[in-house]
C-alpha cells in the first residue's frame, strides 16, 4: 500500500513548494536595481566644465565632481577599476538614469522639485550659488539687475537663465547656446555680455581665462548639487548620504574644494549641506 505514503509525501512536497514560492516572490522587492548590488559602476559627469567635470585629451576625466564621485564610489565598496566615467550633457541627464545608461550622475545636477519626480537625489554634496560672469573691463554690471537689456547666455537643458529673467524679472536678452564653454567663448568674442550660472562653474572658467573675465560676486540663489540615481533606489541613496557625511567629517570635502577652487576668489563652504532626504 504505497498510496498513503505517496499521498503524505505529496502533501509535504506541495507545502514546501508553496513556502519556497512565497519566499522567492517576496524576496527581491526592496533591492531591485539598487547600485549597491552592482559590481561595476557607470558614473555620468560633465566633460566641458573646467574645475568640475572636464575631459582630458587622453580621454580621462578630472574635476571636483569627478573626485567626489570617486570618493563616494570608494566608500560604497567599488574599486578604481570598476568605475567608468561617461559624458552626460545637461539635456539628457534624467533620460540616461531612467534608461539605466548610467548608474549615477554627478554633473552639477541641481535638485529641483520637478526633477525629483523622475529621479532620486542623494545629497546635495555641495550648495553653490548663482552668480554672474562678465568681461574683465565691463564695470557697468555690478548686480544682477544691471543685466537689464544686456545679452545673457542661455544653455539648452539648464535652468540658470530662469532665475534672472523669470524669477528676478530682469529683462535681459537671451542668446541660445549649447554649452557653457560656448557661452564663455562668445562672451570673450563680444557676442554676449554676461553668463549667469553657478559660482563653481564660473570659477572653473575664471581660473582658465584669468584676467579676461571676472565674477561680479552678487549671489542670487542656492543651487543644490545632488547625486542623481534611478528613481526609488532608496538604499543606494541612504548609503551615499552616509558617504557624503563622512566626506565632510574627515576633511576630504575641504581638501577637494581647496584643490579645485582655492586659487580663485570664491569663498567655499566646508560644512555638510542639508540633505534632501531619500523619500
Amino acid at each position, binding site marked *: 500500500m504505497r498510496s498513503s505514503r505517496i499521498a503524505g509525501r505529496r502533501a509535504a512536497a506541495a*507545502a514546501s513548494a508553496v*513556502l519556497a514560492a512565497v519566499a522567492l516572490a517576496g524576496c527581491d522587492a526592496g533591492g531591485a536595481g539598487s547600485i549597491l548590488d552592482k559590481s561595476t559602476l557607470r558614473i555620468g559627469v560633465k566633460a566641458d566644465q573646467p574645475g568640475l567635470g572636464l575631459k582630458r585629451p587622453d580621454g580621462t576625466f578630472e574635476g571636483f565632481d569627478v573626485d567626489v564621485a570617486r570618493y563616494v564610489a570608494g566608500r560604497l565598496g567599488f574599486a578604481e577599476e570598476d568605475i567608468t566615467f561617461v559624458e552626460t550633457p545637461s539635456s539628457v541627464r534624467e533620460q540616461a538614469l531612467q534608461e539605466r545608461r548610467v548608474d549615477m550622475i554627478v554633473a552639477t545636477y541641481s535638485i529641483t522639485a520637478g526633477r525629483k519626480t523622475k529621479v532620486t537625489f542623494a545629497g546635495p554634496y555641495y550648495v553653490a550659488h548663482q552668480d554672474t560672469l562678465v568681461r574683465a573691463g565691463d564695470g557697468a554690471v555690478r548686480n544682477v539687475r544691471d543685466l537689464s537689456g544686456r545679452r545673457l547666455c542661455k544653455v539648452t537643458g539648464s535652468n540658470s537663465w530662469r532665475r534672472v529673467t523669470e524669477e528676478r*524679472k530682469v529683462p535681459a536678452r537671451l542668446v541660445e547656446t549649447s554649452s557653457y564653454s560656448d557661452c564663455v567663448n562668445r562672451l570673450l568674442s563680444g557676442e554676449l555680455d554676461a553668463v549667469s550660472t553657478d559660482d563653481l562653474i564660473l570659477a572653473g572658467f575664471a581660473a582658465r581665462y584669468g584676467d579676461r573675465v571676472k565674477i561680479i560676486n552678487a549671489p542670487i540663489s*542656492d543651487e543644490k548639487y545632488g547625486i542623481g540615481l534611478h528613481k526609488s533606489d532608496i538604499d543606494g541613496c541612504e548609503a551615499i548620504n*552616509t558617504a557624503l557625511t*563622512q566626506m565632510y567629517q574627515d576633511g576630504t570635502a575641504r581638501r577637494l574644494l581647496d584643490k579645485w577652487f582655492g586659487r580663485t576668489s570664491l569663498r567655499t563652504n566646508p*560644512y555638510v549641506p*542639508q540633505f534632501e532626504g531619500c523619500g
Partner: protein
Amino acid sequence: MSSTVRRPASPHPSAATRRPGAPARPRRRLHLRTVPARIRALTAVVLVAVAALFGTASWAIGNARTGLEVIGHDAGPQVMVTGDLFFALSDMDAQVATVLLLGRDHRLGRGRAAALERYEQRRSEANRALLQAAQLAGDDPIERRTVQAVLDGLGRYERLAGQAMQLDQEPQYAHPAGRPSPRVLELYRQAGELMKLELLPQAYNLTLESGSIVRKTYESKHWSVRAGRVGVLAAGLAVVAALLVLQWYLARRFRRLLNPALVLATLGVLAVTLPAAGLLDSLAGRLQSAKRDGFDSVLALSRARAISNSAYADESRYLLDPARADTYEQVYFDKSQAILYLDAERTKSLTDYHAGVGPAVERFVTGGRAQVDFLGFFGDQARRAEPGTSRARALAEVLTGYRAFQEGDRRLRELVAAGRPAEALAQHLQADAFERYDAALVRLAEQHRTAFTGAIADGDRRLRGWHVALPGACAVIAVLVLLGVRPRLAEYR
C-alpha cells in the same frame, strides 16, 4: 528485519511481520509494507507538519513583535523627538531676529520678554532632542560626530546671538523698532550663517539618518509578517491534509470511522491556523498604519513646521537687513515651494506664487484629494487625505491658514515697496496669521501622532498571550495525535 522510521525507535517486534521467502532488505531503507509502520510514518508526517506550523507562526509573530517594538517603542519615538531638533534650532534663530527687530520698543507685538522666554524654551527642547539623537547614534562613529558637532556649534551660536542681543541694548546702539546698528547686524549675520550653514543642515541630516533605521526595520518586518501569514496558512493546510490522510487510512484499515482524538486534533489545527493568519494580517496592517500614517506623517509635518517657521524668520530678516532683501526673498520663495509646490512653469517668482496659492488651496478644500495639483509637503499630505475624515478637515484648516499667511506676506512686501516699513513691521510682529497657521499644523501633527500610538497599542494588545497560546496549542495537538494513534498501534503489540 526492522523497519526504519524517522523518529526515535521503540522496540518493535519485526520478525512476525516478515513474509517467509521474501528477500532480506538492507537496513537503511524505509519499510512501509506493514500497517504499524505506515501508521508511524503518517503520524511522523503529521507531527513534522505541526512543527512546521509552529515554527512558521512563531517566526512570523516574533517578527511582528520586533517590528512593533522598534517602530512603536524604541527607535520610532526617538526619531520623532530628533525631528523636533530642527524646529527648535530654527525657532531660536527666529526669536533672536524678533528681539533685534524690536530694539527699544520692548512692548511691540508679543514683546521682548516673550521672545526671550521662547528662546530659552527652544534651547531646552533642542537639548532634549540632542540627548535622544545621541542615544540613537549608539556606536555609529559618523552619527556621534554629527551630534558632537551640533553641540559645539550650538555653543558658538549662543555666544554670537547673546553678544548681538546684548549689544543691541546698549545706549549707543539703541534704536526704535526696525533697524539695528551695523555692528549688531554684522554679529547677527555671523550667527545666522552659523545656524543656516552648519547647525540646521546637521540637525536635519541627523533625523534623516536615524529615520532610515525605522524604514529598514519596517520594510523587512512588514514583508516577513505578510510572508509568514501565507506560510502559516500553507502549513496549516499541510497539517490538516496529513491528518485527513491518516484518519482515512485508519478508517479503511480498522473500519472505525471516527477517531475522536484525531478529529479534535484536526479542529485544533484549524483553531490555531485561522486565528494566527488573521492576527498576522491585522498586525501587518497595524505596522503599515503606524509607519505610513503615523511616523512618516509626523516627521514630514515637523519638517513642514520648521521650514514654515524659518520662512517667517526670513520675513523678519527681510525687514531687518534690507541690504540683502533680494536673497531673503529668494530663500523665502524656495521654502514656500518646499512646503507647497506650485508648478514651476506657471510659478516663476514670489508674485506668481502669491497669486497661485489661493486657487490651489481652494480647489483642494472644495474638491478633495482628486483636485490636488500641488506637490511639496502639503501635496503629499493632501493626496493621502481621505475625504470626510477628521484628518482631511484638519488639513483643510492648515491649508487655509497657510493661504492666509501667504496673503499676509504679500501685503508685507507691498507695504515695504510702498515705503511704509513701520506698518509692515507692526503687521509682521503681530504675527496673527502665522500663529493660527502654526497652531493648525500642530493640531494636524497631533492627530497623526495619536494614530501612531493607537496603531501600536492595538498591535500590542492583539499580540498579548500568543507567546503562551501558540506553543500550548501546538503541544495539545501533538498530544491528541499521539493519543489517537496509540490505541491502533497497541493492537499490533
